[in-house]
């Protein structure tokens, strides 16, 4: 459905490398996630796949159409939701939707089934200007507009950034439903907890893919034993554990610190070390790695 081969993209005449030699495939009906921090190159990948930018080198195709030569065919059949809210703020909800329906040569009625679940939530506000909607509603409207022409591939660039937790959950539930209708979805997000909701994910950092697999496999590939440590003074705990000679990595993770050690180590060795440094209420337990742990491991390991 979507294929990228050795795609490279630079800005400012090559001085800034946005995407470096990226290749991956997305199958039909797959929910594929691009996971990575800001500036990892996610938006650049989206813009190349939606034919808004031309790659410096490499080839890519969407629906079998080449992104450079057959850009017009791609523009007909994909839905795109940019990272920044990009609807007409001075048009109402309804006006926006019918505008995008018309420029794709369709009507709201014709594809109402597809957007129904999403649109009913914003329909009570259909006379409101799009600019006056809340963050979550804006995203729902943008998704409706991207879906109104029944695209075969849907590109969603950080659809949940700046959206509250409840709306984020709802949004992902909607994506699941769309997937069931056979729509291929490529979504990017900086939130690691959303990664497990995808069929497959690519972890991206500085324009390179660090790992590409199902979320489960990425997690099982995490070979080290991971411990969660907690004490009264979290900051001091972090610096002390990092100084500890056997510590491999140590990062804050919620109220706990996630730590790996270079060799198998008993709880007593660590607690003894910490107590000597004056830590109290020490909690030490093994924990199951998350995508975020994998990501941190991938970017820190040489």
């Amino acid at each position, binding site marked *: 459905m979507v294929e990228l081969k050795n795609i490279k993209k630079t800005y400012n005449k090559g001085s800034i490398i946005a995407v470096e030699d990226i290749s991956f495939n997305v199958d039909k009906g797959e929910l594929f996630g691009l996971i990575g921090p800001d500036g990892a190159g996610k938006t650049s990948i989206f813009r190349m796949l939606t034919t*808004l*930018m031309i790659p410096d080198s490499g080839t890519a195709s969407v629906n079998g159409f080449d992104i450079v030569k057959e850009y017009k065919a791609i523009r007909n059949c*994909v839905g795109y939701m*940019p990272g920044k809210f990009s609807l*007409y703020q001075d048009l109402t909800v309804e006006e926006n939707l019918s*505008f995008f329906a018309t420029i794709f040569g369709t009507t709201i009625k014709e594809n109402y089934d597809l957007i129904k679940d999403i649109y009913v939530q914003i329909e009570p506000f259909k006379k409101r200007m799009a600019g006056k909607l809340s963050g979550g509603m804006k995203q729902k409207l943008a998704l409706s507009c991207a879906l109104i022409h029944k695209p075969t591939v849907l590109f969603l660039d950080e659809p949940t950034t700046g959206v509250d937790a409840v709306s984020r959950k709802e949004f992902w539930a909607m994506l699941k439903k769309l997937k069931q209708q056979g729509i291929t979805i490529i979504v990017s997000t900086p939130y690691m907890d959303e990664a497990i909701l995808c069929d497959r994910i690519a972890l991206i950092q500085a324009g390179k893919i660090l790992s590409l697999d199902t979320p489960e496999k990425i997690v099982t590939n995490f070979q080290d034993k991971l411990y969660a440590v907690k004490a009264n003074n979290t900051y001091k705990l972090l610096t002390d554990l990092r100084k500890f000679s056997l510590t491999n990595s140590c990062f804050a993770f919620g109220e706990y610190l996630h730590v790996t050690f270079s060799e198998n180590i008993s709880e007593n060795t660590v607690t003894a070390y910490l107590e000597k440094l004056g830590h109290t209420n020490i909690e030490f337990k093994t924990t199951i790695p998350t995508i975020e742990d994998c990501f941190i491991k991938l970017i820190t390991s040489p």
Partner: protein
Amino acid sequence: MKQLFTFVKKEFLHVFRDKKTLLMLFGLPITQIVLFGFALSNEIKNSKVVICDYSNDAVTKQIIEKIQASKYFDITEKVYGRDEIEKTFKKGEVKMAIVFPAHFADDLLHSNKAQIQVIADASDPNTATALKNNVSSIINDYSASIGARSIMPMQIVPEVRMLYNPELKGAPNFVPGVMALVLMLVCTMMSSIAIVKEKELGTMEILLVSPFKPIIIIISKLMPYLLISVFNFGIILILSSTLLGLEIKGSIFLLFAAATLFIVTSLAIGLLISTGAKTQQAAMMTSLMGMMLPTMLLTGFMFPIENMPLPMQLLSNIVPSRWFFVIIKNVMLKGLGFATVWKEMLILFSMSIFLLNISLRKFKIRLE
């Protein structure tokens, strides 16, 4: 077709919901014309006049009485000699001097012809012309009335001298000039932000990932401004014929046709700026700075183009308002028909096609 219609409708909604732009679109041309209207008003009452009567006979007395009786003039004093006239002018209050030569009545009786010298302060050319016309008509009335009583037609010829600005450049040219200037600036500025606005707000990004054609966006961006500007032109015409008393002598239809061509040309310039600009502000500045000076200088209403050095004359050919100015002058003020202005209209037409073509080519189908 339906796409185009929806697009045009969308553009109208943008324009009508943006109150600030709307105010500018309608307010600017109207205020400009009204302001110029009052500035150029030719109702001049009670202007101070000095009389220099070397003849001092029955006829001159009668004429002086008539002038005094008119609401336009207020005779302040009688002076004798050039130097004194000069002195009163230099004080600045006196606008006009009327000189009757010696033996005025005798000349009129014996040779049926006498001369009056009218000297006007033409540093304000508008006032001077108006005063000259008023005094001429009073004298003509008088000579007609005495001519009717005698067998031979008698003639009193006012010989007019315009002091300080003998050519009276500018005055009647102003209204068509302002029309051209205002329409050009408003149109270019408005359309210059049209496309760049979509880029700046990010809407261009999704618009591009859709099957729309650039020509549709270009046409639909033009439409609202075109309609509004043609409407504006109508208001300007009404204002200049009522408020400024400028009679529209030629065909109204021809005027509107020419205005439409000119408006499309100006809008096309704006769109061209818009396709290249990075921000709305940059587009506004480019259109304002880039258009204001050439339009003011090279339209021909402030400075006659014939008097300019050759390179400037050549340069003026690419300024659309120059051609529109010629059309308006010929059609509105002189009442000439299509036969005299078809060349200028053809030039405007070609310009607009050419400019729209370039903007279409320059329209970026991708993000930079």
